[in-house]
């Protein structure tokens, strides 16, 4: 009967090997969780890993965080229609600023302003409420901030 047992031993060792590997490789918290087999079959500890993903943006309410060190800029911003724009939209993520990064990368490009101020002819769209220009004819090649103060836009041209 050795011709039966020889391949059978191979199969038995293979299965035992796979089960042993599986026992050590699959984490203890892996299994069917609260949401059931269909939607909740996962490694439970992964939820904590996602919660601990690093944060970049602060997006503090009414820019109170930025106001602590830059009261002048925030005050002029809040007095203008640009008050609705969070500081970090143009100044970049600032969660650990001023520790890291010590200096923020300010996006002063014309393309940034055009996101809202390039005129698009759509009746009824919110875009029409925003004052718009035609980027092709309105001082092409020049940066907007050369003439307009992005904080207090009502100040007039510089």
């Amino acid at each position: 009967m050795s011709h039966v047992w020889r391949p059978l031993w191979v199969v038995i060792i293979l299965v035992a090997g796979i089960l042993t590997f599986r026992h050590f490789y699959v984490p203890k918290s892996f299994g069917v969780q609260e949401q059931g087999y269909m939607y909740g079959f996962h490694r439970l500890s992964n939820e904590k890993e996602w919660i601990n993903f690093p944060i970049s943006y602060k997006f503090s309410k009414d820019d109170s965080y930025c106001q602590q060190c830059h009261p002048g800029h925030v005050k002029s911003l809040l007095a203008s229609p640009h008050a609705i724009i969070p500081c970090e939209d143009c100044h970049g993520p600032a969660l650990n600023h001023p520790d890291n990064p010590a200096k923020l990368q300010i996006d002063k490009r014309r393309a940034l302003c055009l996101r809202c101020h390039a005129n698009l002819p759509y009746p009824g769209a919110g875009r029409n409420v925003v004052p718009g220009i035609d980027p092709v004819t309105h001082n092409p090649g020049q940066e907007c901030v050369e003439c307009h103060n992005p904080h207090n836009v009502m100040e007039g041209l510089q």
Partner: protein
Amino acid sequence: MERRDFIKSAIVVVAGAAVPMSALELMNPRDVLAANPNLKWAFLVDTTKCVGCGMCVKACKTENDIPWTANVSRTWVERYVVTKEGKVWADCPKQARDGFTSPLLDENAAGKISVDPNDIAKGFFVPKLCNQCDNPPCAQVCPVGATYKTPDGPILVDRSWCIGCGYCIQSCPYGARFFHPIYHVADKCTWCYHRIHHGMKTACVGACPFGARQIGNLKDPNDPVTLAVLDSRIGVLKSYFGTKPQAFYIGLSKEVD
């Protein structure tokens, strides 16, 4: 025993026996509490407020470490232009990470399309992101248990467990999933799970100057999103798939799906 008493007792016994044991188990307060955690995230998009600046896409890509130059994003903004003859144009150049700054529509292989402003009946923008469905097809099809629904709503991907088969990317009716070019696993919007669990708004909600995006807790009866879902005229995307999306939209148009 009188005939009347016998009938009374018989009714009580039969009625008592008719109550199944499972019904009594439902009354266990611990089970009731476990089935009703006090968190259930919901997203509200007011398309009427969106101006197509794409600040949400920029913030999302930066916050969530999605390669800037790759043509993938966890959230995106679509532009719809409907002509007076009823022709519908739609585009989403680079997932709108740079916003919409040109009236030309980017129709990919067909090139840039110019539509005469006098022919335009309506034009609008629709921000999109993962709907964190209550019946998520993506979590259902995952063969290895790498993607799953959390008890408070969002669907997450276990990056150490995903084998990158792409089945979930195919199964999402909303096209909300993509293959992460660096980690080589499926990736998707998490409604900034790391931010909302630390008392912050999602990056896209925080970046939107116009209040077109909101996130809230449906279990809180005073949450602005809960109130809007309860008393505003809201819609969801592709309701006919039965996925029960948890991102609600104000101002959807029939051209959007």
